């Protein structure tokens, strides 16, 4: 046992009063690297603790933002440990108590952290069974455990986990080779218990960052520029400073007013008289596409196989199109919020963030403290979708708390939330491709401008392919300089646009080749998981074959993302008089490997598809240079109840495969399946998202008259 683990153990058990704890191993690991913790050996880094009352506390650096990992992680531990779900208490996203974690994103919680957590629980089970074997005088491999009670078959002897843990101080590192339970033996995983957070959330007990109110807390409102790129020339704060109870803080780039009442703080902010420079002009939401293609520079090759020229020579039909999409906001209903409380030389920050540990490190740097003197606690997060990892609000709260010496809340207004969002980037995808006389894709040549390559390689058997990219888009690293303001990861970063372009294009190729769009896809893939979801969706939907545009108003689109495969089918009705599209039904089939919580997985599929209706129909940020014109929901329109169709979800079982991603995959092909259904209904293909009524009408006007439906 290393020196550090001894340190950990002593302090850990002082705090917990003993029990059996499983600590994070010291081996290399992709998502919870010990190296990232370097220098803070006093951090407590247990995965789980079995207390003398038999209750199991699970510590996870992941956060709950609606995706259901509070429940699914508890299920994984309950399964491997052999206890009921009720016996588990979860501690999430607390940097003082949980093992290091890079953040909750990329559909990685179940896929990457899950195996480590399950291994820790399996290790704990072995420890407990070992203790039980000694106590009962029965060989360990003859014991079974159910609901935290160990029994020896054929004997009346039994002992509970609580009895085994009482008076013990046992610490173990998680074993690298813990044997996980097979899907066929699952008792807790593979089931759909009620969400653990459900009761908190329906009663108002669930606390979000802005609901934390330490005594003496001040509300901050911060002076914001009118546009990105504007800088403060001068400030007259005299009127605000005269208001009773108001403190005006001015430190470097940070200008804020503080008051014990939130409305008084807002009123004081209105009294500030700033003078701003005029930012340089830049592209707007119409000229952005030309700008991106020009500013992106020479394309870089990202993937290549076969011989494009040879493929082109065999093509009977060539299709060449450019697809476009504007900026899309994350728009969680909870705006960014943080509360920072300075005490005894440390700062505790409750923050709505997807990345508690990186946030802790950035706060420490911003306020000049060691990371060990900053504690970040993430309560419930009111939606993230990739948009809550920049942490500006947490840093602002910590700075203001340090300056004022008092607890400070920074809760962004909706306008600030829009202004500082790291948007899903606008993009252009150009594709040229061809099929041979037999309806097989013989070449595919695509260039993605400014959105990155996630999901940009079609999931088909294409012998000759080239994928290029411009703009050097990096979602983990501040975006790309070609964009006029910050962009960043938005639920399946870049993959929504790439799936829209690919699957619109595949649909157009099928129509050009005179082949039913489902048949065309099946003909061009031998990937069994893709074929299985396509066939499952077709069966659930009741797919009727027909070459597009068939007049039925139905369509298919598919994709692979985060290790999962999805096929979607949609039924739409298009009102030709005003260009509105009514989605009547969406069917989605998904193979996500082993499923931890089927109903939770379905919630994520439904949520993905519903969220996608926004980028498909109405969400597109309007801006002029650095001036963000949409700053609230009156003009930036999210999907509402009246726009949400019937959504049927089918999970294609694949227990042979470990759990794959569930939070993102189904969102990717939704735009494409609806655009394809509009084409099938009318013969009109809209090439730019969102499919506003105006754009649908334009496409209708440009389309050839529809053949009589066969």
């Amino acid at each position, binding site marked *: 046992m290393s020196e550090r683990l001894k340190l950990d153990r002593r302090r850990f058990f002082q705090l917990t009063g003993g029990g059996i704890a499983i600590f994070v191993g010291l081996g290399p690991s992709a998502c919870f690297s010990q190296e990232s913790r370097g220098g803070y050996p006093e951090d407590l880094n247990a995965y789980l603790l079995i207390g003398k009352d038999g209750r199991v506390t699970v510590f996870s650096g992941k956060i709950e933002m609606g995706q259901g990992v509070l429940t699914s992680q508890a299920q994984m531990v309950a399964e491997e440990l052999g206890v009921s779900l009720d016996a588990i208490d979860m501690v999430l996203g607390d940097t003082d108590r949980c093992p290091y974690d890079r953040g909750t994103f990329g559909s990685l919680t179940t896929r990457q952290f899950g195996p480590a957590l399950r291994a820790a629980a399996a290790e704990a089970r072995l420890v407990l069974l070992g203790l039980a074997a000694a106590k009962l005088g029965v060989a360990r491999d003859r014991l079974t455990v159910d609901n935290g009670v160990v029994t020896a078959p054929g004997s009346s002897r039994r002992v509970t986990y609580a009895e085994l843990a009482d008076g013990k101080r046992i610490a173990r590192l998680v074993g690298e080779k813990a044997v996980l339970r097979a899907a066929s033996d699952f008792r807790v995983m593979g089931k759909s218990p009620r969400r653990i957070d459900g009761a908190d959330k329906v009663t*108002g007990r669930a606390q*979000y960052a802005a609901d934390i109110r330490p005594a003496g807390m001040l509300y901050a409102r911060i002076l914001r520029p009118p546009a990105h790129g504007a800088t403060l020339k001068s400030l007259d704060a005299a009127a605000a400073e005269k208001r009773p109870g108001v403190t005006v803080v001015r430190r470097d780039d940070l200008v804020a007013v503080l008051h014990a009442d939130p409305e008084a703080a807002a009123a004081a902010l209105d009294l500030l008289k700033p003078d701003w420079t005029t930012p340089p002009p830049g592209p707007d939401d119409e000229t952005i596409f030309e700008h991106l293609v020009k500013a992106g520079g020479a394309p870089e090759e990202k993937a290549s196989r076969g011989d494009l020229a040879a493929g082109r020579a065999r093509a009977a039909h060539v299709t060449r199109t450019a697809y476009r999409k504007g900026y899309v906001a994350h728009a969680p209903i909870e705006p960014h919020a943080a509360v920072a409380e300075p005490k005894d030389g440390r700062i505790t920050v409750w923050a709505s963030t997807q990345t508690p540990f990186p946030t802790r490190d950035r706060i420490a740097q911003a306020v000049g403290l060691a990371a060990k003197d900053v504690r970040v606690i993430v309560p419930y997060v*009111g939606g993230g979708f990739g948009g809550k990892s920049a942490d500006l609000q947490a840093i602002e709260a910590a700075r203001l708390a340090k300056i004022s010496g008092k607890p400070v809340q920074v809760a962004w207004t909706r306008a600030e939330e829009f202004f500082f969002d790291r948007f899903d980037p606008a993009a252009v995808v150009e594709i040229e491709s061809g099929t041979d006389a037999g309806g097989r894709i013989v070449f595919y040549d695509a260039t993605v401008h400014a959105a990155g390559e996630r999901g940009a390689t079609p999931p088909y058997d294409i012998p000759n392919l080239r994928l290029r990219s411009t703009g050097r888009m990096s979602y983990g690293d501040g975006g790309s300089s070609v964009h006029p303001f910050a962009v960043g990861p938005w639920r399946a970063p870049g993959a929504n646009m790439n799936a829209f372009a690919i699957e619109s294009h595949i649909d157009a190729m099928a129509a050009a080749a005179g082949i039913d769009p489902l048949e065309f896809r099946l003909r061009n893939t031998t990937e069994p998981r893709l074929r299985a979801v396509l066939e499952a969706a077709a069966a659930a939907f009741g797919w009727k074959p027909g070459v597009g545009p068939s007049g039925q108003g139905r369509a298919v689109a598919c994709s692979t993302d985060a290790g999962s495969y999805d096929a979607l089918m949609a039924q739409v009705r298009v009102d030709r008089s005003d260009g509105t599209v009514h989605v009547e039904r969406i069917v989605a089939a998904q193979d996500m490997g082993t499923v931890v919580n089927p109903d939770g997985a379905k919630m994520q599929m439904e949520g993905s598809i519903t969220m996608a209706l926004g980028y498909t129909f109405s969400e597109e940020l309007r801006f002029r240079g650095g001036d963000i014109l949409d700053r609230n929901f009156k003009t930036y329109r999210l999907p509402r109840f009246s726009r949400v169709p019937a959504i049927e979800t089918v999970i294609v079982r694949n227990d042979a495969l470990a759990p794959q991603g569930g939070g993102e995959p189904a969102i990717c092909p939704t735009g494409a399946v609806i655009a394809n259904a509009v084409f099938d209904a009318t013969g009109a293909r809209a090439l730019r998202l969102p499919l506003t009524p105006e754009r649908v009408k334009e496409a209708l006007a440009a389309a050839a008259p529809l053949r009589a439906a066969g």
Partner: protein
Amino acid sequence: MANTVRFRLNGKPVTAPADGDRLLLWALRTDFGLTGAKYGCGIGECGACTVLVDGQATLGCQTPLSQLEGREVVTIEGLAPAGRLHPVQEAFVAHGALQCGYCTPGMILTACALLSRDAKPSREAIVKAMDGNLCRCGAHRRIVAAIEEASGTAAPPAARKGAGTP
């Protein structure tokens, strides 16, 4: 703060300073520590701040405190005072009609107001009543199903094929 308003809050008489433009949402969250009503947009477009005033779904971010004299305000914290969930709350849990939960108090109170004026609403009436409440996680279909169950117009999720996917 010379003006004071008196009203009933979750069944108890309360008073609060009510200068001209103080809003109900902030009074609830600060004076009374009731944080179930959420700020989402500040302009009445999202419904996250919805509470009941005399049984009507009311936007806390658009309601001056001065208008509440003598009225009855119920927040999510007051919906199930005895600790047992209200049928709408129970149905939301049963249907998984929530994800991040931030919009949930407003959704539940909007649904309660609907059911108090129309005990057996049609699906269309539910959609219409809920259209002012935004949910970004995409729980819409389950929310509608939960309201249908709470009103007795639909079966609980366990009785249906494919739980939670109406």
